[in-house]
C-alpha cells in the first residue's frame, strides 16, 4: 500500500462514514475549547473561594461547571484536566511509538533467530502485569510528569512492536530495499531511513488506538492519587474528587466522568474506523 492509495482511501472513508466525522469533530472541538476556555474565563484554576463552595453549574459569574469543595471554578479546572489528559496521552503514545517501531522494525528486518528471541520476549512481556509495576514506580519515586510519560509509554509498545514487525517483514522483500542493499547502504540505515517511513500509515492508525489506552492508564493513576499532583489536575483526579462529594455535589462527578467517557469513546471509534481503512480483508466484505 503506498501513501497515495492510503490517502484516497482515507478521504473516501471520511466521506462515507458519518461516525468518523462526528468523533473526529468532537475531539477537535474538545481540544480547542480546552485550550481557549481558560483564557476566556475570569477564573483561575487554583484560586479558592470559601464563600463560593459547591455552587451548582450556572452562567452567573461564569461558573459554567459549578465550583468544587474549595470553591475553585470547575470549568477552568475541567478544561485544565482535559489539557493534561490529552498531553499525557499524546506524549506517552509517542514514547510507545518510538519504542514499538524501533523494536518491531529491527526484529522484522533482521529476522531469523534474533527475531524469534525478540518476539518471544514480547510474548513473555504480554503476561506481565505492567500496570502494577507502574504503580510501584509511582509510589517509590516522586511523581513527576516525565516519569508518567515514560512509564505509560513503556506499557503500550507491545502491540505496536508486533504490528510493525509484520509490516516490516512484507516490506523488506520489496525492490527498493534490494536496491538500497545493492548500493551498500548499511542495515541500520535501511531500517530507519527506508523501512520506517513506509510504516507511517499503519503506525498512525495504531497510535489512534494507543491514545485511549494511555488516557485510561493516566486517569487510572490520577484517580488513585498517584498521577498528576494538586493543584494540577487531570480528568482522573477530578473524577476522584467528585466521588468523595457525589451525594451533595453530583456535578463534580458527572461532568469530568462524562467528558472522559466521551473522549475515550471518540478515540476508540476513530481508531476502529481508521483500522477498517487499512484492513485489506475489508475489501472482500
Amino acid at each position, binding site marked *: 500500500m503506498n501513501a497515495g492509495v492510503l490517502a484516497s482511501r482515507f478521504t473516501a472513508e471520511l466521506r462515507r462514514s458519518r461516525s468518523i466525522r462526528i468523533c473526529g469533530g468532537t475531539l477537535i472541538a474538545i481540544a480547542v475549547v480546552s485550550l481557549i476556555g481558560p483564557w476566556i474565563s475570569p477564573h483561575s484554576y487554583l484560586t479558592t473561594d470559601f464563600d463560593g463552595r459547591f455552587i451548582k453549574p450556572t452562567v452567573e459569574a461564569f461558573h459554567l461547571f459549578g465550583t468544587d469543595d474549595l470553591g475553585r471554578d470547575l470549568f477552568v479546572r475541567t478544561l485544565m484536566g482535559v489539557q493534561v489528559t490529552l498531553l499525557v496521552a499524546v506524549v506517552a503514545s509517542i514514547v510507545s511509538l518510538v519504542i514499538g517501531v524501533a523494536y518491531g522494525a529491527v526484529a522484522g528486518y533482521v529476522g531469523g533467530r534474533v527475531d524469534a528471541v525478540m518476539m*518471544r520476549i514480547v510474548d513473555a512481556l504480554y*503476561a*506481565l*502485569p505492567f500496570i502494577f*509495576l507502574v504503580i*510501584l514506580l*509511582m509510589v517509590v519515586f516522586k511523581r513527576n510528569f516525565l516519569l508518567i510519560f515514560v512509564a505509560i509509554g513503556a506499557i503500550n509498545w507491545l502491540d505496536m512492536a508486533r504490528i510493525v514487525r509484520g509490516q516490516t517483514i512484507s516490506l523488506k522483500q520489496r525492490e527498493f530495499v534490494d536496491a538500497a542493499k545493492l548500493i551498500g547502504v548499511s542495515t541500520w540505515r535501511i531500517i530507519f531511513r527506508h523501512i520506517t517511513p513506509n510504516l507511517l500509515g499503519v503506525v498512525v492508525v495504531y497510535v489512534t488506538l494507543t491514545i485511549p489506552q494511555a488516557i485510561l492508564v493516566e486517569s487510572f493513576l490520577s484517580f488513585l492519587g498517584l498521577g498528576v499532583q494538586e493543584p494540577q489536575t487531570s480528568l482522573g483526579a477530578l473524577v476522584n474528587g467528585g*466521588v468523595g462529594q*457525589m451525594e451533595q455535589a453530583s456535578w463534580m462527578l458527572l461532568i469530568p466522568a462524562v467528558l472522559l467517557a466521551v473522549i475515550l469513546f471518540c478515540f476508540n471509534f476513530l481508531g476502529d474506523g481508521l483500522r477498517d481503512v487499512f484492513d485489506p480483508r475489508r475489501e472482500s466484505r
Partner: protein
Amino acid sequence: MLRFALLRLLWAIPTLLLVIVLAFLMVHAAPGGPFDAERSLPPEIEANIAEFYHLDEPLPQQFTRYLKGILKGDFGPSYRYRDYTVAELIGGAILISLKLGALAMALAIIIGVCAGTLAAQRRNSLLDRMTMAFAMTGISVPVFVIAPLLILFFAVQLRWLPASFSGSTSGWRFLLPVIALALPQIAYIARLMRASMIDVLGSDYIRTARAQGLGTAAIIRHHAMKPAMLPVLSYMGPAIAAVLTGSVVVEEIFGVPGVGQFFIRGALNRDYTLVLGIVIFYATLVITLNFIVDVLYGFVDPRIRHR
C-alpha cells in the same frame, strides 16, 4: 501435550522471576529509606530499625533473603501496619477479592458470550446494533467512572442497593461491585464473540450442516459454539489482568476490604513491603492463570500444540 505444558511453564517461571527482581530493585532504588519521613531519630535507633528490617545487609543478600521468604509464603513485616506481616494482611483479604473477581469473570463470560452469539445470529438487526453500541461504550468507559455512576444512580438517587460494601450484610452488596467490574469485560467478550461467530457461521462446514437440514439453534450449539469460543478463551489472560486492575479501583470505591484496598492504602502510605508483596502476589496470580489458560487453549485447539 505434556511437553507443551512444560514448555509453557519454562517461560512462566523466568517471567515471574523478572517481575520480582524488577519490583525489588525499584523499591530499593527509592530515594531515601522507608522511615525517612518521620522525625529524625538518633543514629543508634536508626541502626536498630535498619537491622530489624535487614536494611543494613548488602542488596544481593537482602534479595536472596526476600526470595527465600517468598518461597515459604513469607513477604516480611509491613512497614506501616505494625504487628502485621504482609502475608497476614494479604491472607486476610484474599477470599473476598477472589469471590468478587470470580463472580465478575463468570458474569462477563456468560453475558458476553450470549450477547455476542445473539448479535452474530441477527447480524445488522436492531438488536445487533444496540449490542455493539453498548459494547463500544463499555470498552470506552473506565471502571472508575462506571463504579461511581452506578453508586450515584442505584444507591444515592434510587436507594435500591447499598452504596458501601462494608456497611451492609445482605448478599446484594456484591451486586454493584460485580457489575462495575464485569461491564468492560462483557463488552470486550461480546465483540470478540460476535466477530468470531460471524466468521465461523460463514465457513463451509456450517453450510454443509445447514444443507443437511439442521436448524440454526442446533448448528450453533453443536457445531459453531466451540470453535467460536477460541478467541474468547485466548482473551482470558488479558481479561484476568484487567479484572485484577479494576478490582483495585472497585474495592476502593465500594469499600470492599480486599487485597486491592490494602494495595491503595499501601501505595498512598508508602508501605514499601506491603506494596511490593501485593505486586508480587498479583504478578504470580496473573502469570499462573495465564499459564492455565495457555495450557487449556492447547488442550482445546491441537493446532497450537504443534507449532
